[in-house]
């Protein structure tokens, strides 16, 4: 017979008010995938659990099996990510990471790699000089993890080398990128791709860096705004193609970026 209580690490992806003072949490766990659990009395100021089950907190939970939802009996925060609370931009990107993760996570299915990625991603958002770049790194890692790693070194359709890599050093040759074809295309294949668009050399280089480097190396780069925007657009289109839907929080982030400036 299954035990009535169990323990798991978890990251809070969503929380919804429930009843008078309870909260229904959607959490990601390494061993059990996505779970919906109930934190009773979490909105009360006297609740000792509340601070430990706040959004995007990484927390060790003790859960009791319940009829509809399992119930949080103990909660101890492992990482609270203060910077996400004190900065609207970082906080908004955290919503975006959580929304993306929610799309890829399965219920009741072990996925320690996805858990580790989100756990790292939230730390990146706190530490990065520019949270937007941390979000790009997270996106690229998520694509790799879920089997959609874009081909960026050669033509995704023909396997031919890219013109940009054969051109003279410094020559700004644009390369076609197609989410449907799964990455960069040679000039010939680009003619056949329906959703292809041009990536300037600098944007392609940044995408490659995102695929191969760590945050501290990325953070040292001075990325011109236009290049950041092109990379953002390329990855966003890749996710829209992969998920077959747009994400709510991308529109929101654009609003926040506009209002903060």
């Amino acid at each position, binding site marked *: 017979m299954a035990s009535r209580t169990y323990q798991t690490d978890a990251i809070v992806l969503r929380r919804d008010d429930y009843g008078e003072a309870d909260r229904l949490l959607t959490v990601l766990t390494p061993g059990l995938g996505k779970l919906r659990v109930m934190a009773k009395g979490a*909105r009360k*100021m006297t*609740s000792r659990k509340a601070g430990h089950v706040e959004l995007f907190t990484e927390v060790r939970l003790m859960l009791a099996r319940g009829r509809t939802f399992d119930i949080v009996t103990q909660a101890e925060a492992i990482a609270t990510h203060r910077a996400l609370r004190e900065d609207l931009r970082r*906080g908004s990107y955290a919503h975006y990471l959580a*929304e993306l993760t929610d799309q890829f996570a399965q219920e009741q299915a072990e996925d320690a790699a996805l858990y580790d990625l989100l756990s790292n991603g939230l730390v990146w958002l706190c530490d990065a000089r520019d949270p937007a770049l941390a979000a790009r790194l997270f996106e690229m890692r998520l694509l790799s993890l879920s089997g959609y790693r874009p081909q960026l070194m050669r033509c995704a359709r023909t396997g031919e080398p890219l013109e940009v890599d054969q051109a003279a050093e410094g020559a700004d040759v644009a390369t076609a990128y197609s989410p449907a074809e799964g990455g960069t295309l040679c000039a010939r294949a680009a003619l056949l791709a329906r959703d292809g668009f041009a990536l300037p050399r600098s944007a392609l280089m940044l995408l490659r860096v995102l695929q191969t480097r760590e945050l501290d190396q990325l953070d040292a780069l001075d990325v011109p705004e236009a290049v950041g925007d092109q990379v953002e657009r390329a990855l966003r289109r890749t996710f829209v193609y992969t998920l077959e839907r747009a994400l*709510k929080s991308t529109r*929101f982030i654009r*609003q*926040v970026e506009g*209002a903060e400036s």
Partner: protein
Amino acid sequence: MPSLPRSLPPSVTRLVDALSQLPGIGPKTASRLAYFLLRAPPETAASLADALRDLKARTRLCSVCLNITEADPCEICSTPSRDRGVICVVEEPLDVTALERARFGGVYHVLHGVISPMNGVGPDDLRIRELLARVAEGRDGVPVREVILATNPTLEGENTAAFIARKLSGSGARVSRLARGLPVGGDLEYADEITLSRAIEGRQNL
């Protein structure tokens, strides 16, 4: 959701449907309330109906603090003894009630929500512009000395406070945040007056 038996007269179904829209009330509770009203003396239902009609007909937002009021400006904004130089910014009208119990002596500004990507609420959807104008202009010759950001100690509440603090930097007013004594993740509405008055006294500059 379990559907109601088809034998119910439409007037009952209509009330059950309307009650089910209320927060925290499911179809079961809604049916129980509907049957209670059905059996209660006619005055009970009539006074409830009147109260509901007046709620919308008589109330409006105070043109100064945007709290819900019958008279404009509201009672708090028109009391001369209250310090108009100190504005306490809250998420919802219910938070004003909580802070009044803690005997706060300044005036309020109600945002009517918090910045929340999950609910699609951005900075432009809240009454932030009105706050910035209020701080810039002062009232009746009284300049605003301090803005206390009393949004909930949740992620959205903290994010909203951080955003407003940035917008107010350079306004000349001191910007402060309720003391950290309030537990993270809680709802101001549920705080007792002792905790709240301590949080006001211990407020920190942002």
